Structures are given as C-alpha cells and as structure tokens.
C-alpha cells in the first residue's frame, strides 16, 4: 500500500506533529531503526547524553523551563532501567515527559533475550501511563494519546515501549485530530467546576482575620497566566503568602506579600504564620511532609481551602474544609470574578494586626548566619551569585542537599519556571542534566546549576554533552567535601558520628573541567568569590566554579523531623528536647 510507512517513520512523524523540537537520548540495539530515521531528517534535533539517566533529567529541565513536553529516546534493557529514577522524579514533581524505549522484537519477548527487560512492568508505578505497542497501526494513536495524557490534568511521565520488529514494520499514520481519546482516560473538570464551592471559599477568605496563601508547584504547571492570576488575587485580598520549594517564583520574592518558602528549611515567619492562621488557602500544593511537619500539630486552628487538580491529594494527609478540584488558572480566575462581583472586602483592621504579628516574626531574622572571616560561607556564595546575576535572565537548577536549601533560601526568584529542583523524589544528580535541558530550551539565557561536591559527581559524565553541544551551563559547586545534609543529620541526630558522609578523593574540579575542554575556576576565600562569579558569567563556555566553603556549616532554620511549625530550630545551640529527637530519628 502506498500510504504505508515504517514504524520508525511513524514515531518521527508523530513527534513532528506534536511539535517536538528536541529529543534527549542514547542509541542502542533495540532503537536503531528509529535512530536511522532520525538521521534522515532535519526537523527534530537530538541531544546525545552520556548516560540515559542524564537524558531524562535533561528532558525534565527542558520541560519545566519551557512548559513544553520533554521527550526521551533510549534503548531496551539497561537503557530503560537507567531512566527509572528520572521517571519517578517526573512523577513526583508532575513533569510532562514522553519516554520512548526500544524493546526486543516480539518473538523474543519473554525469552530473557539480550538487553530484554519487562519495561512496562518496571515502569508501571513510576509513570502516569505506559504502553507496549504490538501493532504498528496503533503506533500513531498511542503517541498522540501519550502526549495528551502527559500534559493533561496533573502532568506526568508517559512511556512507550516499542519492539524492534514494530519499528521495522509498515503501517498507516493517523493524524492527531483524527484520534478520539475516551473521556475517562483524561482529567476533565466539571463544566461549572463546583461554583458553589468557589463561592464558599471566597466568602471564607473574605471573613478571615489571619489568612495565608500556601502556594505550590501546581500553579507553575498551570502555566504563566496562573501565576499572574494568583498574584492578582493575593493583592486584592492583601494577604501574606508563602510558597513551597516547587512553588518558588509564582509570587516574586520582592512582592510585599511574600513570606518566602515554608517547611522544613523554610522561613520562620512563614511557618509561624501557617501555624497561627485562621484561613489557609492552599493553591496547587499537596501538604507534603517536608511542609507540614508533625501532622497533629499542623495549623491547628485554621479552616483550610485546597485547590488541586488531582482529587487524590484531597484529604490524603490533612483534612480540609473546602476542597476544589480543578486547574489553578481556571479556579483562581473564577475566584477573582466572584470576589469582584460580590464586592467582598477583607477586615482591614484584622489584616493590619496580622501583619504586625508577622513583622514581629520577621524580626527574628531567621536566615541570619555568621559571615565573619575570610572563608566563604555557602549562604554568602549564593547571595553573591544572586546579586551578580539578578539583572540577567537566569535559570537556576540544583542538585539535592544543603546547597539546594541554601539556594532556595538565598536566591530570590521573581518569575515562575526559572527554578528547577528535584522536590518530591530528592534526586541527587538532577541539577546538571536539568541545566543542560534548560539551556537547550533557552540558548541565550544564563543557566546555573547550584551543586554540592557529592551530588555533582552523580552525573558528571554529562560534561561531555554540555561541551559537545556548546551549552554554556555553569556549575556552581558549594564544595565542603561532605554530603552536607547527611552530615548535618548525623550531627543533630546521630551523635556526630559522620558515617561515610565525608567525600575523600574528590577530583580537582578545575582540572576536571579542563579535561573536558571546559573552563574551571576556583574561589578559596571571600575576596576571590566575586571575581570568580563574574568570570563564570562572562565565559561563553561550560564552566565549573569550585567554591570552597566552610566545611561544617548547617542549614537553618530547621523543623526537625517529628516537630511542628512552631518548633523551629534557628541554630545549632537550640537543641531539640531529647525525647522528640529520638522520636524524629525514625522519620525521614
């Protein structure tokens, strides 16, 4: 038949019709037909990573910085198993990803063939949905459905496993608009999305004396318009607002209503306000355990409104009074409408008193640290990085650990989609490949991976990728020779026995950079810091800046595991009482 093309061609045609510009991947036996087709076309760019784990984090970074779907292409067996961490990461942080894996030809499935594994079985719990495509004629409809599912409702990763014989087989291509996806397979908000719930919520807000908005990553996933609307609504109410790690940037750091981040290493004033508020408005956050602390002491006297697109987040860990299932953008737009329509106004006097109380908490100055001496404090390094990059279009990614929390505390985000970090899964090794993905999506922007010396080594092989594609990603290592957060917990909870948390035999990061033909810089003292940062920004090449920071600095403030919002530790001297410390030890 004339209209028939090969499965591999259908793959590329589907990607093109879905508007895919770039694929992150690594070839291998079971995807050779797709790579062969890729070779014969020019519309889709391929970024060759150095390990499949790097491909999926790069796709995540690309997706989260651009708002598009990230696409990954890897082979069967080890190619597929290497993306499992990234799929789980994308699942936890709701990142739209389509991951294509090759599979051994169908007649070999189940025979323990070379590079065979049960990919759909392994990835079932860590994807939103997955497919094993056995019929070449279903390939295009599977692709179109996969892209829709990845982006629809609460976004997430979708995996398509394609046996090699299906890639070679001939079949017909169906266009996107010819595919009808049954409605039960998608999230569809009810048409009037619970209008009375919205009215109930808005009325509750208007009567609040101590309101607080608690903003999460869902606002970012809902698109830039959602952030604008959320800001507008908060301004109308005049309420304080705090953001989760994933929600940073929805409301600008310099906004007069912003109390910054909340949670385990959040701001004292944000956590105290959460504890004492009378109405909490959760928009696109999921009461994560890093945020709530001890559940039975979480914001005990408040009425709670929870806006979430995923119904399973409602009453999962915290019972709420007014749940609203829907997309942030649509719900908040409606809330603004109702607020204006009914001419609601908040009690000015009560709000004034509430702000006075909050301003008292602010006086605690919870991020204060001792910045004496010539040795670089990690907090100071992030502050200087912020000061020297704040006027440039900058994307910040991080790995996981102390440096991540310092970045969240000291780097000020004014816009959504500029901050990429692994929140739910806490994946060390996320930041560098994510920075590569963000740089691919924004070739002219400054992209900095704030890293730790331990995390960066988890995906250091991607230096080769960054240099090959001339991606001027900057790696800003806060080097204390420790797995800092592990060391901090060992200091606070395990009697200072630093079991295996010291990283001996670290590479010379400057020489390491040079060996990849990138640029290596080093700052050992505070007076070298600004020069190194400036040079790093100005270099039009991949840079590793090795910042030697004080070794045993701890990340404060901190709500220790098993403690409540009003039981924050502000410094090391303020030890938790022994009994609750023992109880907290078993928690993560």
């Amino acid at each position, binding site marked *: 038949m004339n209209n028939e093309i090969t499965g591999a061609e259908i793959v590329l045609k589907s990607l093109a019709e879905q508007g895919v510009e770039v694929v992150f991947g690594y070839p291998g036996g079971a995807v050779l037909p797709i790579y062969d087709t890729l070779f014969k076309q020019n519309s889709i760019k391929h970024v060759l990573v150095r390990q499949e784990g790097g491909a999926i984090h790069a796709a995540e970074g690309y997706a989260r910085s651009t708002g598009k779907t990230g696409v990954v292409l890897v082979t069967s067996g080890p190619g597929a198993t290497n993306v499992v961490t990234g799929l789980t990461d994308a699942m936890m942080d709701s990142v739209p990803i389509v991951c294509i894996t090759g599979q051994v030809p169908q007649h070999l499935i189940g025979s323990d063939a070379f590079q065979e594994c049960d990919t*759909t*079985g392994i990835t*079932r*719990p860590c994807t*939103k*949905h*997955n497919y*094993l495509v056995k019929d070449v004629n279903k390939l295009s409809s599977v692709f179109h459905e996969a892209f829709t*599912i990845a982006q629809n409702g609460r976004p997430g990763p979708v995996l398509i496993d394609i046996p090699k014989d299906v890639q070679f087989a001939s079949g017909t291509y169906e266009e996107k608009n010819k595919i009808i996806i*049954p409605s*039960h*397979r998608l999230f569809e908000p009810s048409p009037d999305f619970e209008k009375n719930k919205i009215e109930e919520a808005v009325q509750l807000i208007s009567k609040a004396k101590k309101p607080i908005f608690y903003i999460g990553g869902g606002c970012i996933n809902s698109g830039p318009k959602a952030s604008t609307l959320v800001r507008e609504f908060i301004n109308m109410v005049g309420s304080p607002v705090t953001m989760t790690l994933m929600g940073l940037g929805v409301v600008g750091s310099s906004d007069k209503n912003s109390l910054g981040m909340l949670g385990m290493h959040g701001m004292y004033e944000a956590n105290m306000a959460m504890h004492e508020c009378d109405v909490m408005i959760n928009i696109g956050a999921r009461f994560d*355990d890093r945020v*709530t*602390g*001890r*559940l*039975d002491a979480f914001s005990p006297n408040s009425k709670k409104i929870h806006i979430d697109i*995923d*119904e*399973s987040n*409602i*009453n*999962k*860990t*915290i*019972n709420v009074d007014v749940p609203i299932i829907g997309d942030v953008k649509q719900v908040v737009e409606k809330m603004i409408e109702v607020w204006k329509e009914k001419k609601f106004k908040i009690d000015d006097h009560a709000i004034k008193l509430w702000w006075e109380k909050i301003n008292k908490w602010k006086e605690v100055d919870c991020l204060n640290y001792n910045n004496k001496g010539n040795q670089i404090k990690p907090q100071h390094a992030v502050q200087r990085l912020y000061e020297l990059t704040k006027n440039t279009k900058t994307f910040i990614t991080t790995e996981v650990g102390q440096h991540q929390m310092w970045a969240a505390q000291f780097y000020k985000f004014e816009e959504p989609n500029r901050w990429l970090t692994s929140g739910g899964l806490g994946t060390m090794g996320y930041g560098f490949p994510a920075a590569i993905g963000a740089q691919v999506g924004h070739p002219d922007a400054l992209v900095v991976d704030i890293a730790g010396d331990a995390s960066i080594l988890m995906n250091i092989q991607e230096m080769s990728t960054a240099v090959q594609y001339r991606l001027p990603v900057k790696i800003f290592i806060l080097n204390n020779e420790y797995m800092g957060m592990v060391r901090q917990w060992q200091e606070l909870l395990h009697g200072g026995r630093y079991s295996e948390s010291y990283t001996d035999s670290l590479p010379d990061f400057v020489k390491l950079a040079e060996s990849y033909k990138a640029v290596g810089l080093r700052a050992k003292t505070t007076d070298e810091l600004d020069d190194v940062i400036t040079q790093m920004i100005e270099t039009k090449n991949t840079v590793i800046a090795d910042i030697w920071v004080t070794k045993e600095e701890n990340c404060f403030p901190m709500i220790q595991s*098993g403690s409540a919002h009003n039981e924050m530790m502000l410094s090391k001297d303020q030890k938790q009482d022994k009994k609750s410390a023992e109880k907290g030890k078993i*928690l*993560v």
Partner: protein
Amino acid sequence: MNKSVYASPDQVSETKRHILTVLVDNEPGVLARVIGMFSGRGYNIDSLNVAEVSNDENISRITIVTHGTSEVVSQIEKQLLRIVPVHSVTNLDQEGSSVEAEVALVYIYISDTNKKKVYQLCDLYRARKIENENNTTIFEIAGASERVNRFIKEINKITKVEIVRSGPVAISSIQKN
C-alpha cells in the same frame, strides 16, 4: 488514615469491609495497574475477582473486597480513578443496598463412616454435587460469603476437605431506569 511517615491526625473512623466495583478498559496490564496500586501504597486486598462482562467486550469488571477506615477506602477510590484505563469506581457499601455472592468448590474426603453426615450437611446448605469422571466427591456451594464460611466450618468438623473460592462478586441492587 494517612500514609505519611508523620503521626496521623485525630479523627479516624473504624475499620470496615468494603466492596469496590471497578470498571476498566480490557487492555494488557490493567489488572497489574490496579493491584500494583494496592501493594505499592500499602492497602489491603481481601479478595479480587476479574472478568469481562458480556454486554461490552472491551470492558472488564473488577470486584475488590478490601478493609479499612472510610478515609483509607476513599483514598483507594481516588487512587484507582487516577489509573488511565479505569472508567469508574463504585463503593457498593456507600451505594446503599447491594447483593453479593461467591462460589466455592469443595473436595471432600469421604468414607463410609462420614458419608451420611456429609450428605446431610450438603443438603442443608444446598451444596450441589458435581459429577466428574473420577467419581470423587466435589460439591459446589454458592451464596453470600458468610454462608460459605459457615458451611466450610461445619464440614471441617466432619472430615478433611480442600477448598477453592472465587471471592465475592457484587452488584448494586438499587432500582435503575
């Protein structure tokens, strides 16, 4: 009530048995998705029954018996609905009234001394003898799980048996038009 590592909030209702009916697209892997959700999130499955329903070939009906507080069961329902091929989840206990039944096949070790007692009991419970080529004594009993339980308890007092049970299936008995 919650799956968080932190202490749970105060209101926890009592643990009860619930029957869930889940309608799913009949596609490969769908059962694994459903039961994987249970094991992955630490929920209980007391019994499970799956079969295609004849009036629509592409849809299967899964009946799951679970136990938990109403908070846990409500979480289970919501987590099931997140699975892409799931059409609907119905908690029959919340629907109001429903009927349920299961089938058990019982292989009975029979001898001259117990034969009479066995047949009397089977008669009482309306268990039906299934003829088979080896002429062994196999009875089929259908009905509510509790009835099957009682039968098994009594027959166990008489002789040794081997049992297989389908687990309950259930359907809402509310009038529909």
